[in-house]
């Protein structure tokens, strides 16, 4: 048996093993994920797409796999390596939202807040309570509010990873110190579009 036959044989074995391992796990994870994917499908697969995915794609995978199997092996090992690395190092931490005194708007009582925050819906798709579906969160927030705490409405802008954001809601203030908050609005602030002249200005600065 030549080295070429050995190389191709090993590749074929590896690609067949990877293909059926993938199929097996797919079947094991079937229900929930496939339901999700089916629910997002915008069109029924064409007959040709079925033939393609069931017969032609596996044959192509075996043929190509037999040739480039060291690459497949590398990807497989990398997949396990990446999962291991992610578990080891975790994700980098996102900036934390902080509020300042300038963000405070108005001092209010619980009753005043609850009156203005009752949510109603003509189709009855919300409990008629302060903050509607978020009422449980509001109750928890009140439970953590001491009797000598003040409640203030707030509005604050900040810049997390995704871009600038506007946050509004109510915050505890105790002896001048800002405490926990309950959010009622969290909205992305639109960035001004980058114009050609602005881009040119930056390019000039960079190349100067």
């Amino acid at each position, binding site marked *: 048996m030549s080295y070429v036959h050995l190389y191709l044989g090993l590749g074929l074995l590896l690609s067949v093993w990877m293909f059926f391992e993938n199929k097996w796990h797919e079947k094991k994870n079937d229900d929930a994920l496939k339901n999700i994917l089916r*629910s997002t499908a915008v069109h029924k697969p064409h007959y040709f797409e079925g033939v393609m995915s069931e017969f032609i794609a596996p044959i192509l995978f075996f043929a190509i796999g037999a040739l480039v199997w060291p690459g497949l092996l590398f990807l497989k090992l990398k997949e396990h390596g990446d999962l291991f690395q992610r578990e080891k190092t975790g994700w980098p931490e996102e900036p934390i939202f902080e509020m300042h005194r300038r963000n405070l708007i108005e001092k209010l009582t619980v009753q005043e807040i609850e009156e203005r925050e009752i*949510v109603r*819906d003509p189709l009855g798709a*919300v409990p008629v309570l302060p903050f509607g579906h978020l009422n449980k*969160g509001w109750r928890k927030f009140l439970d953590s509010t001491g009797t000598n705490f003040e409640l203030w409405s707030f509005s604050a802008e900040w810049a997390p990873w995704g871009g600038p954001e506007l946050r509004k809601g109510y915050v505890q203030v105790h002896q001048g110190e800002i405490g926990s908050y309950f959010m009622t609005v969290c909205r992305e602030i639109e960035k001004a579009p980058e114009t050609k002249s602005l881009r040119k200005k930056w390019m000039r600065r960079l190349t100067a």
Partner: protein
Amino acid sequence: MTAQIPERLRYQGEEYAMCTNPLSDYFLMGGESPNFEMNCTALWRGYVGSWEIVADRLYLIGLNGSLEGGRKASLETVFPGFSRRVFAHWFSGKIRLPQGRQLEYVHMGYGSTYERDLLLTIERGVVTQQTIKQNGTADLDAPDGYGVAAMTIFSEKSKE
């Protein structure tokens, strides 16, 4: 990060891919989140919500996902007592509904661009404005409509 499977929105008799996740804001604002299971890199959030706009109000009308342990998630899981429809009063911001052919595929989040974006401005669950943003003209053979090119589906083994 992989391109993400979108939410779905029924609006004015049409079905749209919706590149905004209003339920993420709900969880951020203190709404209780069940532990969704992430099975796939194209669905980091672990669920797909079906939404509808009726009389200018945004409603969540379905939820498809799985929870840790393999249990199926539904609307009732997140909003007990509201199994058919939930008014999204917590959401303020823009909803992006990409339309037309693909201009550029970006394999990250909802980064891909399309010929047009139908943008709905929502204030506390109520539609206040509708605009169409023209992004350009795509090649005639470009894919039509939102799509995710590739994803990794995690096996139980690799998650262990």
